[in-house]
């Protein structure tokens, strides 16, 4: 058995998350045992549930491998969504054991969780995951005639060496070319949002957790769209994006249930329409990226990604509208 660089990085990210959580608990006057209970439950639950979700999402394949494969952790196969579920479950268990508010503990776990996600996401690059398109292809470096660009970027570069290497790209050890470091972009974005959410003022218990979940899902949608390496699909659909859509819907329901009564039906309908439209825009952007919308074929891929980023921001805003009302 040997140390796995990815595992080491992930363990370090988790340790940072635990320490941040412990510091926050102390500052906010939580019971002394809260942090230790959260730590001791969150780690195994996150690992096991992320493994379980991976197996469930690929059930026929998993059954072919045999149940014993579940424990072959060194072979890889984890879903980050399972880790989110694990943390939520750990917060619930901690609340039960320590006799404190579940929503407040979840709020407390939000920022450390987002930071752990951000740092952990960067580790994907160590495992040869989280790559985007090759830089050369993106900028049509090999096209001698600028008109013959690959259709990826609007910008044609004859020399893209500026973008070769961190923080823009990582070398694909297999082919020796440089590919966009998507995992790094998403990881950094998560860290930036952690700061934003940390400074955000939330009145009600659970509000910070709801917004953190929305940001995590939006980042997942964007990342799944940008990465070009191995990712889980159901047919042509990316599993992470489907799960994110379900979480967004659940978050909206939670926010609407938490709104002070009476709530106008038109408000609820308007919020659902906004969420569904933003999801529709994600789908359109995704189809445009796959060049499946013939009449929009002319849009370069950087244009498609701008549209995807707008759609992801809209997803968060769609939930935020209801979130604000429930937090008022």
């Amino acid at each position, binding site marked *: *058995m*040997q*140390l*796995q660089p*990815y*595992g*080491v990085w*992930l*363990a370090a990210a*988790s*340790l940072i998350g*635990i320490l941040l959580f412990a510091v926050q608990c102390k500052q906010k006057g939580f019971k*002394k*045992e809260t942090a*230790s*209970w959260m*730590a*001791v439950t969150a*780690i*195994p639950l996150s*690992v096991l549930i992320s493994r379980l979700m991976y197996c469930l999402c690929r059930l026929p394949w998993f059954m072919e491998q045999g149940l014993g494969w579940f424990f072959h*952790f*060194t*072979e*890889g*196969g*984890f879903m*980050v969504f399972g880790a989110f579920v694990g943390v939520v479950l750990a917060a619930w268990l901690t609340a039960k054991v320590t006799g404190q508010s579940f929503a407040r503990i979840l709020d407390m776990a939000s920022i450390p969780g987002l930071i752990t996600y951000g740092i952990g996401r960067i580790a*994907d690059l160590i*495992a*040869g*995951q989280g790559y985007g*398109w*090759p830089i050369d*292809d993106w900028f049509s470096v090999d096209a001698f005639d600028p008109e013959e660009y690959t259709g990826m970027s609007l910008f044609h570069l004859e020399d893209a060496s500026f973008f070769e290497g961190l923080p823009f790209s990582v070398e*694909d050890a*297999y*082919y020796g*070319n440089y590919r966009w470091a998507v995992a790094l972009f998403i990881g950094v974005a998560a860290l930036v949002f952690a700061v934003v959410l940390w400074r955000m003022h939330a009145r009600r218990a659970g509000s910070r957790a709801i917004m953190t979940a929305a940001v995590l899902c939006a980042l997942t949608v964007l990342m799944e769209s940008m990465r*070009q*390496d*191995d*990712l*889980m699909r159901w047919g042509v659909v990316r599993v992470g994006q489907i799960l994110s859509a379900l979480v967004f819907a659940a978050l909206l329901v939670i926010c609407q249930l938490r709104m002070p009564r009476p709530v106008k039906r038109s408000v609820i309908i308007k919020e659902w329409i906004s969420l569904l439209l933003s999801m529709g825009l994600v789908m359109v952007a995704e189809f445009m990226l796959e060049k499946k919308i013939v009449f929009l074929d002319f849009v370069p891929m950087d244009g498609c990604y701008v549209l995807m980023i707008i759609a992801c921001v809209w997803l968060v805003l769609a939930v935020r509208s209801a979130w604000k009302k429930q937090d008022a």
Partner: protein
Amino acid sequence: MKANVFRYVVTCLMLVAMAFLIASPALAETEFTHAFEGPDVTDVPLAPLTLEAADVQPLELDQLVKGKQLKLDNLNADNTEYTDSSIHAVITHDVVQFKDKKGKQKINCYIVRVTIADPTQIRSAMSYDDYDNTKRVKAAEMAKAANAVAAVNGDFFKYFHDSGYIVRQGAFYRDKSNGQRDVLLIDSNGDFHVVYCADSASIQKAVEAFPEGVKLINSFNLGPVLVENGEVKDISQSAVALAKKSGDQFQYPYRMQRVAIVQLGKLQYAIVECNGKADASSGMSVQVFAEYIKDLFPDALVAYNLDGGGSTNVIFPKNVKGKLKFERIHKNPDSREISDIIYFASAEE
């Protein structure tokens, strides 16, 4: 207090376990989507062909002895199936879609499944039937001369005379094996044996392990072994990759034309060819090719990589206006003349 410390200690232990156990967030694997065309095809896995038991006269071992004359009537209308009492061969066209590390691809692949009645029907031929003559010829010409029902390029063993363990049609030519190649041995039962990182001693040991009375008929020195007993091999650990001396190791990760010969069962074989371009802009890496073969034939006994790129040639007879012609089943734009073929012959008089 003690319980608190205990929980933190357990947490630390779990973090250490994470560092040892979690190697990657996802499995590195390639999924294939197939679109098959051809007779006797449903979906993956492809089944080995059947052949009704028939008494056939074995062909003589001598390389100058070729297969029996093919008959036009035994070819189907699409030129995709040849059947007689001694051989059954079928071409399947697969438009395969997959994603490798460079992105998505959609390429043409051809699979020729062959079942023979007698092991002497799997044979090899060399250009001008002469080991010392290094002139190359078109694979189709060699296939025509040999009356091949199906033929595939071999390992280009006449290109250099300085390496490899060479036995063809039972005749020994040279032993200059150096441990830098995986070698394929085909015995007199028509069974495949592989020797990894083959040198003289390991090949000798493998031959001595043959069942009593079984002889070595052909050996090939290219590789690497792609699949053995249904298990995809890690190409980064293959003989050439480990030796780090041959230029081939640099070509393994490239997208290129690939071709392999596969033993599926007793006297059941397949030739698998994937198209591509020698400039590495399309095709499969050797690892992806191995996974593709495993996807087609999960129970393959042995799949052995042959000389790909411009050497890739798979030949099948064709009825052209009532005349039998031997042509590549797919035009390889980078095709070159070669030095040897492996072929399947008819033994029906």
